[in-house]
């Protein structure tokens, strides 16, 4: 469903992505990990065109993202995205946050959007908080609202950019639970995260990045069982040894 071929990107003379090739099939969950500064956040943002690329090709279903003529807004309305810092809209209530895209992008009626929003908020366990403003919620709750906001668009795939790294430890599991449930329901997901427990539980494949390159792209069992590269081994031993 998502296909990346030889994707490269530069910030000035600094190369952030170097010939990255990978794919996500329908219903697949792919976890992207790697040390900070390895380009994994940049990589996931290229999928829906939030970051442009200079070389290579990205295709989502039939749409070529890297083509200048592509209607990115239409593409983005079909791919949900969850950010590290939640990025809920602070001037709108939780309910309005989930309704906004449905109404302004998909053109759904107010009542339909509202029903859908309430349903999804219930699904992420926040039905009681619909009338609150984002800042009145905890980080974990905000992130679950953000997931609901993405799901409200009936996406064909969900992108997660370090969804738990800005959270206090005790809230991480609430968010991961929602994500695991989503994976089990068959959602196509690309997830940048350090949560190896999550990867072991639901990932189909793991992509390991370092210095802008994809070093390893393997099934979950191969990656955790016998990572081939030294760097992946070092990375795993560092984050798992504590």
């Amino acid at each position, binding site marked *: 469903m998502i296909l990346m071929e030889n994707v490269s990107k530069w910030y000035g003379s600094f190369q952030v992505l170097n010939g990255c090739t990978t794919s996500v099939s329908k219903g697949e969950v792919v976890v992207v990990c790697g040390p900070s500064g390895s380009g994994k956040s940049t990589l996931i*943002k290229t999928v*829906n065109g*939030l970051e442009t690329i200079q070389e290579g090709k990205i295709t989502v279903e039939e749409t070529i993202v890297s083509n200048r003529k592509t209607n*990115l*807004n*239409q*593409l*983005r*309305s*079909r*791919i*949900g*995205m969850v*950010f590290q*810092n939640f*990025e*809920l*809209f*602070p*001037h709108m209530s939780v309910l309005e946050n989930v309704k*906004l*895209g449905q109404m*302004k*992008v*998909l053109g759904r009626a107010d009542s339909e959007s509202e029903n859908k929003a309430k349903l999804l908020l219930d699904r992420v366990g926040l039905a009681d908080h619909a009338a609150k*403003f*984002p*800042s*009145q919620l905890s980080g974990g709750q905000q992130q679950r609202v*953000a997931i609901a*906001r*993405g799901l409200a*668009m009936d996406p064909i795939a969900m992108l997660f950019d370090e969804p738990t790294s800005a959270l206090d430890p005790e809230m991480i599991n609430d968010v991961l639970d929602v994500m695991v449930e989503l994976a089990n329901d068959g959602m196509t997901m690309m997830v940048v995260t350090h949560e190896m427990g999550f990867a072991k539980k639901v990932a189909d494949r793991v992509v390991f990045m370092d210095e802008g390159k994809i070093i390893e792209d393997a099934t979950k069992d191969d990656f955790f069982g016998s990572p081939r590269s030294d760097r992946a081994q070092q990375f795993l031993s560092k984050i798992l040894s504590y």
Partner: protein
Amino acid sequence: MQYNWDWGILFRDPYIWWLVDGLQWTLTIAICAWVIAFCLGSILGIMRTSINPYLRFIGTAYVELFRNVPLLVQLFLWYFVFPELLPEEAGRWVKREMPMPGFTTTVLALGLYTASRLCEQVRSGIEAVGIGQRNAGRAIGLSETKVYIHILLPNAYRIIIAPLTSEFLTIFKNSSLALTIGVIELTGMTRQIEEYTFQGFEAFTAATVIYSLVTFTVMGFMLHLEKRLYVPGMIAAEK
């Protein structure tokens, strides 16, 4: 210090009406110019944060041009030079027939000048809302225009309520420059009272009190507005 006090002068006909008249001019100039500055400044501020490099350049050029020439010089350029540069017919109309030339010119000059300052406030407000919010809006498929309408601007304007108010007060004070091209607003009126009566102390005191009162009233109104538009967790920008 020898001086004949006569505070009663301020309440005597016609001087009290001069003061009222002057204040009316001052407020009318300030409000009209602020409307121009707000509209144009917002457009320029949006341009300066746009993804289009040409729009950004136009915004930047406008700001640099208008904030690096003294307001009084700009006023003179609009009043004395601009009509000469127009085609003959239009130039004659501006010079001879345009209603209230001093007032119109002041409003225009003050509005265009302050737009450059407002542009910077709007820009800093939008930048304070942040790239993350912009991305979040784009990620659900909102077009650039809708990202501005539904997300960036509502937050940016809330953040910059205080700076927008001080810009209004700046216009309010700057409207006194109108007296140089013959619009006798509040400061001009008090100067005129001084010249007619030699009671400069009383006249200037009256203007001082009026300016301070209006300023503090506007500040009070601003605090009220900030409270009414408050969204939990929103931080206000520093002045």
